[in-house]
C-alpha cells in the first residue's frame, strides 16, 4: 500500500453483507478508484442500532465495543448506509457518555467515520464517475443520513455526473418510507401505510428507477412496490455510480 493511499475500513453493514453484497463491491470500487486502499475486517457484524433503538443499551454497547476495537486503526471508516454511519458517528459517543475511556475511543472513531456518498464527495472530492445510465431516476433521502448526517447534495452531485441519468425529484423525497428498523415489524400496518405514501410519491415522478443510500429503506420500498405489482426498479445508489447494474437484479426482482 502506497503512503498516499487512504487506509479505509469498510463497515459493510449487516443488511448489505447478508442481502446485497454488490453494494459493498460497488463501494470498494468507487473508493479504490479514488485512491483508497480498502480493508474489510472479518470481525464485524452489526453496528448495534436495532438494540440501541429498542432501548437495549447493554447489547448495543457490546456491539459498539467490537466495532470500535476493530475499526479504530483505520484512517477512515466508511459504511454504505446513512443510518449505520450515523449510529457510529452520532450515537456511539452518546452510548458511552458515562465511560470516559470508551467515550474517548468512540469520539475518535466518530471523527473518521463517514457514509459512503459523503466520503466520496466531502473527503475524496470525487466529482466525476465514468458510467452511463439512460434512465429516469428519482432519489429517496433516508432519514438518518439526511437529518443526522446532512446527506442531501452528495448523492445528487454524483448522480448528476452519470451520463444519461435523468434525475427527477419526488415531491416528498425527504419523507420517511415507514421502515424505521423494528418499527416496520412492530407496527406493520402503519409502516405499510407510510410505505404506500412513499410509493405513490415515487410513481408520481414517472421515474423508472428509485435510488437510495440505505438498504433497509430500499428493501421496504422495493418490497411494497413489487407487492403492488409496480415495475419501478429499486437499487442502492452505489450500484449505479459504480456501473454495476448489470451485476445484480433490482432489489426484490428476479435476475
Amino acid at each position, binding site marked *: 500500500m502506497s503512503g498516499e493511499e487512504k487506509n479505509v475500513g469498510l463497515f*459493510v453493514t449487516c443488511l448489505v453483507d447478508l442481502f446485497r453484497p454488490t453494494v459493498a463491491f460497488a463501494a470498494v470500487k468507487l473508493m479504490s478508484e479514488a485512491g483508497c*486502499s480498502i480493508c474489510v475486517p472479518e470481525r464485524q457484524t452489526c453496528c448495534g442500532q436495532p438494540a440501541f433503538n429498542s*432501548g437495549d443499551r447493554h447489547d448495543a454497547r457490546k*456491539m459498539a465495543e467490537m466495532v470500535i476495537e476493530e475499526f479504530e486503526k483505520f484512517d477512515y471508516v466508511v459504511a454504505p448506509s446513512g443510518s449505520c454511519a450515523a449510529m457510529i458517528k452520532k450515537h456511539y459517543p452518546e452510548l458511552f457518555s458515562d465511560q470516559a475511556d470508551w467515550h474517548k475511543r468512540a469520539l475518535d472513531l466518530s471523527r473518521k467515520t463517514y457514509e459512503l456518498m459523503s466520503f466520496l464527495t466531502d473527503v475524496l472530492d470525487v466529482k466525476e464517475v465514468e458510467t452511463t445510465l439512460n434512465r429516469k431516476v428519482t432519489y429517496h433521502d433516508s432519514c438518518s443520513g439526511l*437529518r443526522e448526517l446532512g446527506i442531501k447534495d452528495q448523492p445528487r452531485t454524483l448522480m448528476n455526473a452519470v451520463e444519461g441519468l435523468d434525475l427527477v425529484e419526488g415531491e416528498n423525497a425527504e419523507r420517511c418510507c415507514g421502515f424505521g428498523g423494528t418499527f416496520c415489524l412492530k*407496527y406493520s400496518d402503519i409502516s405499510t401505510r407510510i410505505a404506500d405514501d412513499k410509493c405513490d410519491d415515487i410513481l408520481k415522478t414517472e421515474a423508472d428507477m428509485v435510488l437510495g443510500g440505505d438498504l433497509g429503506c430500499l*428493501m421496504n420500498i422495493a418490497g*411494497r412496490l413489487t407487492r403492488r405489482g409496480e415495475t419501478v426498479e429499486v437499487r442502492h445508489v452505489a450500484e449505479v455510480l459504480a456501473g454495476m447494474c448489470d451485476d445484480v437484479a433490482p432489489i426484490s426482482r428476479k435476475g
Partner: protein
Amino acid sequence: MKLNAHNFKENAAKALKDEDLQASLAKLGTGFPLKRLAAAARLPEFEALRDQARDIKDHTLRHLDFYLEKFECKVQETGGHVHWARDIEDGRKIVYDICESVGAKTVTKGKSMIGEEMAINEYLEEKGLIPVETDLGEYIIQLRNEPPSHIIAPAIHLRKSHVEEAFRKTHTELPPERNLDEPEDLLKEARAMLRKKFIAADVGITGANFMIAETGSTVIVTNEGNGDLTQTLPRVHIVLCSIEKMVPNLEDCATLLRVLARSATGQEQSVYTTFSTGPKQMDDPDGPDQFHVVILDNGRSRMLGHDTHDMLRCIRCSACINHCPVYQSVGGHAYGSIYPGPMGSVLTPAIYGLEQSCDLPNASTMCGKCEEVCPVRIPIPQMLRSWREKQWEDGPVPILQRLAMSVWAFWAVRPKAYHFGAKIKMRLLGLLGRKNGHFKSLLFSKAWTKSRDFPAPEGKTFQQLWSEKGGRRS
C-alpha cells in the same frame, strides 16, 4: 380524558380503515407543513430565533422555582390569585371551589390543553355546572362528546357533515329546513348559539400559552376571538396552565411568539394575541372582578433534571404532530391521549406513567422530522429512546422481542459463528428466492410479508465473497 393509550394498536388499525379520517389527514399532511415552510422562508432570522427560543426556555427551566415565585408575587400585586395544583384532582377542586364561591352556573371555556388534561368539563358537569367550550373546534367535539385529536386543531379529524350532524342533534331550536351546507352557515349557527353563552357566563376559563414572570401576565393566542370574550365578559377569569409555560419577561415572550404561530399554522402571528394582567383595574372599562391562575404540575417537576427534561421546553405549537408520518397515518385519537404525535409520545408516559402508554414511545420510525421542525429544538427521538430504555430496563417489553434481541446480540458479538451461520442461511434463502427475486411469504416474518414482498438475498454473503477473492483483511 380517560387515557386509552394501551389500545394504540387497535386504535391505529381502526383509524387506518376510517375513510373520513384518512381524507382529513391527507389535507393536514400537506396544509400546515407547507404553510410553515413558506412562513419560515419569509423570515431570514427564523433559524436564529429558534436558537433563541430554545435558550430562553432552557434558562427559564433552570431557574423555574425563581420565576414561578416571581410570577406569583406579580399576580398578587395586580390583585389576582395564584393556585398551585399538584395533580389533576387538586386542579379540579381549585377550579370548582372558585366557581362555587361566586355561585356560578354557566362557565365558558377558551381552548385549554390543561383543561383537557384535568378533564375539567366532566368534573364541572358532575357538580351541576354547565361548561361550554367556545373555540369552534372544541365546541364541536364537546357536542360530540369526544376528545380532541390535535392540540391546536381539536376537530381536525372531522368533516363538514359531522359538524352539521352534531348541530342538528344538539341545537334543538334549529329548524330542519335551515341550510347548513356551507362552512359559513355552520359558523353562523355556532356563533349565534355561543353569543348567548358568553353573555350568560359567570366564570370564564382560558388556558395560557405563556406566563410572564416580569409582569404577572398570562398570554393566549387564538384565531377566533372567543378567548377574549371568554375572559373579559364574566365576573371571574380562571387561567389554567402548567409550570413549564413560564417565560421571564415580555421581550422573551415576544421572541417565542415569533416562532410559535409560524411553526404551528404558518401564520406570522395568530389573529388574536391577548395579555391578561390581573382583574379589572380602577380605570379599566371592562374585565373580570377576579383573576385566578391555576398552575398545574401533574408530573412535570419530576421531569426536571431527568431524561425528558428538554420536553419541558415545548410551546405546544404542534409542528411535530403536523409533520409526523405516523400521526399523518393514524390521527390523534389512536394515541389515546390528549397529547398525540411525537410530543405526546414523550409527554404522556411522563404524566400518566409508562405502563399505561408503553406503545407510544415505540410507535415512531425515529425519522427525526419532529426534531427538524421543533421551534425550540427538542431532541424528540432521543427522548423517545430514553423511554424505550426505561421500558427495556424495568418495564413491559414483549417476551418475544426481548428474546429476538438477545439471540441477535448473542450472535452479533461472535463474528466467526455469525458469518458461518449467515453463509448457510443466505445460500438457502438465495436459492429459494431466485425464481421471483422475493418471497410472498416466509416463516416468522408475517409482519413483513403480509403487505410487502421480502427481497431475496443474492446468495453468498459479502464476507464470504471477499474471502474468496482474497480481499484485504488487515
